[in-house]
């Protein structure tokens, strides 16, 4: 089957702009999980953002320029992994659609075939079925839209979470419903976004879980921001932090006392 050992297989980590800027600990947790699975991880410095803000604002020209840069930067890796279903979905599903034909279409297609969201890579490619960490307490998991509907990610994070010692998953109602983030949507239509995230925080509270997890920092910042504005003490973290056993950093939107 696999001719090479995992160690000889190189993963290019697509950090994502939000993780880079707002929460590096998710990046380090991702590196740890990938290294623990036996892969060599590299973080190319030439990456910026997947281009979704431009793409979803109708700016094709900038989207294509950013996509070309990203493909050039990552196409030599065996795998490209992102701790985000939304960014991975952009790289995997939307980049190939940007190029009609010719050389770039071929390159985008070959690149796309190697792109994975983190938890999906760990379970579906690396064959990881448990992690050796402890996290006492209850968590609830929000299925971010792009990961769920573009990449079919639902069971993968739950499977890994179930192997965490002491962790209990308390599902919220409608975990598959949008949190109202939607990238630029949340600032273009703040009032509508607010109603949607209010419904989401209601669901989170109904779960009774102590911690909210998801695989996308954009959604997490949106839900954390709303929970904190409402005075909730639910902790919000990226799933990678829990799976890597790296929860020393204060939760999203919190600081050390």
């Amino acid at each position, binding site marked *: 089957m696999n001719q090479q050992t995992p160690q000889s297989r190189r993963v290019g980590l697509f*950090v994502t*702009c939000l993780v*880079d*800027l*707002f929460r*590096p600990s998710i*990046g*380090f947790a991702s590196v740890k999980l990938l290294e623990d699975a036996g892969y060599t991880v590299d*973080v190319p*410095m*030439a*990456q*910026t*953002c997947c*281009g979704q*803000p*431009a*793409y*979803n*604002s*109708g*700016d*094709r020209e*900038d989207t294509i*320029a*950013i996509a070309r*840069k990203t493909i050039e930067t990552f196409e030599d890796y065996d795998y490209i992994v992102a701790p985000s279903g939304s960014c991975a979905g952009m790289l995997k599903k939307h980049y190939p659609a940007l190029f009609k034909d010719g050389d770039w279409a071929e390159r985008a297609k070959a690149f796309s075939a190697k792109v994975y969201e983190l938890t999906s890579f760990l379970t579906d490619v690396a064959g990881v079925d448990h992690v050796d960490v402890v996290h006492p307490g209850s968590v609830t998991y929000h299925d971010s*839209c*792009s990961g769920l*509907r*573009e990449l079919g990610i639902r069971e993968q994070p739950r499977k890994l979470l179930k192997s965490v010692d002491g962790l209990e998953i308390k599902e919220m109602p409608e975990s598959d*419903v*949008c949190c109202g*983030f*939607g*990238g630029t*949507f*949340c*600032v*273009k*239509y*703040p*009032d*509508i976004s*607010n109603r*949607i*995230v209010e*419904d989401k925080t209601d669901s989170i509270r109904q779960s009774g879980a102590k911690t909210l997890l998801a695989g996308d920092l954009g959604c997490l*910042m*949106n839900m*954390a*921001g*709303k929970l*904190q*504005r409402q005075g909730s003490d639910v902790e919000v973290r990226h799933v990678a932090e829990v799976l890597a056993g790296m929860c020393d*950093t204060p939760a*999203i*939107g*919190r*600081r050390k006392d």
Partner: protein
Amino acid sequence: MEIRSPAFKENARAALDDPQLRHALEHVKSGFIVKRAMAAEALPEFEKLRDSSKAIKDETLANLDKYLEAYETKVTESGGHVHWAESAADARDIILKICQSVGAKTVTKGKSMISEEIELNDFLEGNGVQPVETDLGEYIIQLRGEHPSHIIAPAVHLARSQVEADFRRVHTHLPVDRDLTEPVTLLSEARKVLRAKYFQADVGITGANFLVAETGTSVIVTNEGNGDLTQILPKVHIVLASIEKIVPTLSDLSQVLRVLARSATGQDMSVYTTLSTGPRRAGDPDGPEQYHVVLLDNGRSSMIGTEFQEMLRCIRCGACMNHCPVYHAVGGHTYGWVYPGPMGSVLTPSLIGVDKAGHLPNASTFCGRCEAVCPVRIPLPKMMRHWREREFSRRLNPATQRYGLKAWAFFARRPRLYRLATSIGIPVLSLFGGRGRFKSLPLAGGWTRHRDMPAPEGRTFMQEWKQREAQKQGARI
């Protein structure tokens, strides 16, 4: 109807502040979604039927001219008349002329969104013909002087108590002490009142869920049977339909019907599925003396061959809006024109122009739930994105958005500059995020109006990573 789509944001604000509407929209969320999921689950071949329904509509659209002509031929052969209406005004004139030719005073109407699109009721009333809506939801909407807020459940935004008040206001010939506390009592009262209207009507106007090219048949599906009485009792039946309603054969029809009701209401089939072919024939026990079909284009043919062609597959089940978090938040009237929800966000700009309807394709989180449930697999988010592209290339979106985006893209396209800017900016921003979050933040008012903004942890990941790698290198030497 008046186009209120440019005021989408104001409409949304008003809708969000309406507690009664919020309560009504809960029903959309809880009812439709669960029922559709159960219906889909119960039919093993449901996903395959979605594929074949998509294929049927694609084939139709690829040869639309051929199928429309075949349809016209069959309608004519069966003794009916086909009228081609390029615009809404054409359709209105054709319908009025038919009504006047038989001296019609009242017309009964089955549910038709096309009728809303061409503003038929106001026009007929203005010309001395009284239209009477016979679908319960449409009847209520008509009494209130409103427009439908949902394409299959026009009065879904209303509470029972509001309908009761309307009935008491209008049905003054009925005893004041009658009991109207149950939905079923409202239904039977409407049925009683409407029953008389069917017999008075000179003309019955229905929409069409499908038109069958093979046989020249128009098809309606209803749950109340009102459509049947509308089209069978008066001496003239007018079918008002848009050109994309065609399916090639009866066999195609039977496939698409299997996904329609399941996607819409979660029923296996609607209660009534009625096929009409031509006027009453000699020996038929009932049926209209005249059978007319008004085929409306109104901008649809210009969608053929563009990135919006796939929208014409739509069979108007309403599943997209039933599953849309934005629709759940603001309801159908917020969209400001005939078609709400995701299908409206793609169709409306095609029909009234993206300059007026620009908010609609923008007001989506792209959560993809609409596409996930669409029975004919219309890529709604993708097409909303195409509208944003058209808007962007025509510079129709606000200048602040454009410049902000361009400034961001300038850096995103230049990794070295991006690194430099973020490695200075982010630690500074982090420094100000005292408690780990911001209650307010310049230029982020849209975010902080409703929620806190988590502050950056400290330095960027790239700064930290470089340092870690450098230390590793150092350790090796």
